[in-house]
């Protein structure tokens, strides 16, 4: 629900507009109060507030300003959402300027996470554009003293066809600003055939800057008189300082201070981890000074954390009955004893985000207020944590959002911005905190390590008569509640609760696991390990039955139907289930599409050359992937080709969508080949791209083809859904080429492959 307001005479956008410009705001109620991510991390006030939100403004010179309130980390969202508004406004995109919003709850949700920017704001953007256009038409009618019904628009121009009169948007902006805002019923939204931009897309408004080094990231933020900080964090999560000797550090030229940052009070949430900050004239001096610190730590209870032992515990837990999540029929009585039962354990380790831009933030504390410049996915969370760390009102925290040098979920957690604010208050100067890559790898909010136990009994055709799946992973909610050990429903719903197979007996369970590091969202999150287990296990069953994996999966999906989650906790990524039902028919269609386009029927795997397949719904989007691999005699794995078909409902920006799915397979390649964070004595053992390698140009698919389904369904996510089916299809292809089943990720640590 939204209500558009005329704020032309109020000063919402200070300085951006001259007197007389038309400026519209939207009073906005988020369509769903249940956020698919981060429910525990956000205050109720954030989610429930009714507040003005998006703005469009038209200057007398015809310039149209559109506010981008979501963060740009490479998805092109800063372009795609404003494009929707511009289309309904019938604006000329060349005359549109984008204003990046600061953090402000009046914009509604700004946490650019969970592949939901377009789906949550598509309608609002359309209505806002249409309302402005309606007001311009009323203004034109008054101006020409004709009926509004005789007036229309043509790309930034108002037209009265009967008399041939035309005038620009800018000329009538002041008049339009005095028109009453239309009610929703009065709005005439464009028909799809009239769309100029939606469905056709546009390259990023920042494209040239991105290619010339002129784009400004958080790393590039600068204030006069600012100091640089590098922080030595406790090596073990929850550790505290016993003693510090900073004498040698302070002798380093350019170093000014060594400043303690208090440890967090559990639960950690988005608080700084604590530690010692070395403050200097430039980044390098701060790094050098920090190396000279001598700190004795009290490592606390997590120092016994050992990821090898932990893995064994997870697998053991997964073998015991867990908490029931969903059941169909009666699995206990359906499992026969004997040879028609297959069991398998799947495992995915902790994963790190490692965006190319490490964590960085600039903050200035002045006169009791904070201004921060940060590459953040969630500027309102920046406001919240800075406000609580410094005990100042939330309104006194201004968060400017820079471009992000990658995010992948890490930059939804603003601990690093809080560090800059805390230090600026202590030092009375602007402070820029720069994390090293080592800091980034060692102090991440990792994607959860997970063990999945799978068991199926099959009939004579190899089709399951009973299916049991049990997952165990330390939940993300543990950063908000130290006692949380079970998966929360939003994350179980990421490809686990919603097993789409049409089988008579299904049991879905989850077991407990305590976290010893910070767990967080990473591109496609729990779908990574859930889809890996389900889609690879399905492939195992297909091969065991000597059946084609695509045909087998279609058989398991059964006839097209809407999944029924009556009496099952299924948050559906925070979306209304009536609007975004789980339709197996849509998954079937992308499976058929990818099989067709990849030539699946003619592809026969041979030794050293395999084809793998997987399909998965995540973030309300259906995707199916075929991967081709070649495995050399030396075990080297190449990926000549990947085909992915997707149904993301209405796709606003197809080019950006293709790019996201191309990127997703590269992200997935890193997960399969080498993604693994381990810990010993509570200390993370990886540090940089040498021991936490990510895929390079010579290791990724040579060719990735993306096929987008034409759909009139409401828009769904595109940033994340490419990852889960690729990971599973890649592993299935490796099996097809080698006969070796990948149940433990990554390959680099798997004794069958490493």
């Amino acid at each position, binding site marked *: 629900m939204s209500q558009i307001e005329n704020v032309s005479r109020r000063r919402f956008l200070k300085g951006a507009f001259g007197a007389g410009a038309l400026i519209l705001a939207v009073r906005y109620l988020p369509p769903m109060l249940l956020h698919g991510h981060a429910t525990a991390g956000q205050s109720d006030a954030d989610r429930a507030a009714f507040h003005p939100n998006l703005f469009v403004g038209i200057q007398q010179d015809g310039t149209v300003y559109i506010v981008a309130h979501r963060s740009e980390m490479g998805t092109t969202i800063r372009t795609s959402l404003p494009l929707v508004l511009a289309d309904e406004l019938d604006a000329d995109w060349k005359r549109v300027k984008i204003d990046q919003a600061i953090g402000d709850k009046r914009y509604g949700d700004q946490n650019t996470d969970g592949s939901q920017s377009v789906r949550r704001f598509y309608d609002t953007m359309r209505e806002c554009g249409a309302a402005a256009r309606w007001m311009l038409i009323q203004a034109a009618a008054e101006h020409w003293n004709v009926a509004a019904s005789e007036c229309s628009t043509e790309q930034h121009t108002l037209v009265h066809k009967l008399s041939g009169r035309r005038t620009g948007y800018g000329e009538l902006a002041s008049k339009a600003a005095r028109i009453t805002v239309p009610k929703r019923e009065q709005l005439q939204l464009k028909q799809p055939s009239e769309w100029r931009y939606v469905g056709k897309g546009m390259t*990023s408004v920042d494209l040239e800057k991105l290619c010339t080094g002129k784009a400004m*990231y958080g790393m590039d933020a600068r204030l006069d008189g600012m100091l640089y900080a590098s922080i030595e964090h406790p090596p073990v999560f929850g550790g505290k300082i016993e003693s510090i000797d900073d004498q040698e550090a302070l002798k380093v030229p*350019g170093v000014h201070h060594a400043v303690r940052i208090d440890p967090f009070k559990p639960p950690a949430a988005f608080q700084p981890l604590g530690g010692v900050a070395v403050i200097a004239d430039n980044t390098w001096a701060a790094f050098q000074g920090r190396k000279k610190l001598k700190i004795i730590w009290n490592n606390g209870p997590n120092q016994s954390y050992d990821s090898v032992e932990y893995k064994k515990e997870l697998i053991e837990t997964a073998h015991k009955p867990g908490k029931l999540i969903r059941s169909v029929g009666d699995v206990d009585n359906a499992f026969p004893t004997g040879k028609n039962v297959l069991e398998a354990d799947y495992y995915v380790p902790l994963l790190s985000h490692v965006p190319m831009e490490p964590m960085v933030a600039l903050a200035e504390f002045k006169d009791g207020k904070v201004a921060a410049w940060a590459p953040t996915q969630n500027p309102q969370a920046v406001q919240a944590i800075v406000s609580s760390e410094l005990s100042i009102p939330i309104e006194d925290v201004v968060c400017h959002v820079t471009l992000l040098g990658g995010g992948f979920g890490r930059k939804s957690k603003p601990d690093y911005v809080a560090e800059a604010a805390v230090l600026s208050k202590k030092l009375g100067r602007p402070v820029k905190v720069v994390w090293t890559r080592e800091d980034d790898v060692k102090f991440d909010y990792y994607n959860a390590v997970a063990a999945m136990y799978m068991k199926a009994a099959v009939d004579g055709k190899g089709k399951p008569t009973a299916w049991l799946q049990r997952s165990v992973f330390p939940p993300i909610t543990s950063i908000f509640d130290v006692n949380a050990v079970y998966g929360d429903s939003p994350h179980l719903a990421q490809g686990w609760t919603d097993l789409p197979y049409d089988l008579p007996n299904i049991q879905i369970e989850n077991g407990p696991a305590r976290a010893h590091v910070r767990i967080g969202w990473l591109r496609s999150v729990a779908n990574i390990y859930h889809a890996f287990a389900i889609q690879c296990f399905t492939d195992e069953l297909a091969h065991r039955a000597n059946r084609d994996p695509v045909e087998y999966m279609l058989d398991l999906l059964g006839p097209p139907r809407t999944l029924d989650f009556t009496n099952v906790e299924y948050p559906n990524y925070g979306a209304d289930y009536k609007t975004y039902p789980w339709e197996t028919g849509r998954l079937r269609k992308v499976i058929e599409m990818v099989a067709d386009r990849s030539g699946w029927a003619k592809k026969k795997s041979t030794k050293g050359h395999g084809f793998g397949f997987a399909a998965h719904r995540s973030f309300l989007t259906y995707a199916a992937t075929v991967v081709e691999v070649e495995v050399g005699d030396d075990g080297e794995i190449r990926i000549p080709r990947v085909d992915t078909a997707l149904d993301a409902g209405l796709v606003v920006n197809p080019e950006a969508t293709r790019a996201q799915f191309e990127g997703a397979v590269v992200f997935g390649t890193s997960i399969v080949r080498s993604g693994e964070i381990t810990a010993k004595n509570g200390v993370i053992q990886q540090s940089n791209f040498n021991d936490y390698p990510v895929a390079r140009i*010579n290791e990724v698919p040579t060719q990735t083809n993306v096929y987008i389904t034409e759909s009139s369904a409401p828009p769904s996510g595109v940033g994340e859904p490419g990852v889960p089916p690729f990971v599973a299809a890649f592993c299935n292809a490796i099996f097809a080429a080698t006969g070796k089943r990948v149940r433990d990720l990554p390959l680099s640590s798997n004794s069958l492959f490493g």
Partner: protein
Amino acid sequence: MVKLKVNGMDRSFDGDPKMPLLWYVRDILQLTGTKFGCGIALCGACTVHKNGEAIRSCITPMSAAADSDIRTIEDLGANGLHPLQQAWMEMNVPQCGYCQSGQIMQALSLLKSNSHPADHEIDDAMSGNICRCGTYQRIRKAIKLAAGKIA
């Protein structure tokens, strides 16, 4: 005192000669197009040219940059977009864009020594430059497109 040329301008630096060129360029000269990604020459985000060759500025101390001609991404587009930058735009390469300065500077170095690189030559030359967004397929296409334009 270290004397050098950066993007054609004479510069002198009297700070710690062990400071990497990266931080001199970014923090002192405020040329922020060159990026910090790993600090130990593993990712290539910091790639600049020294006397016409691609180097990793994050491990190049100022003492090693003395008397050299340093060129950064800011220099490449100074007189209109370079064919590589045009190709990067045409293929819509960047996602977040953070690594792309380094990618382009590395690609420039490749095309200087090999005007029509094959796929495997591109892979060899570019494998030191990480793109976490995964734009590699487009980087390959853009390099080939630019190679055609330069030749």
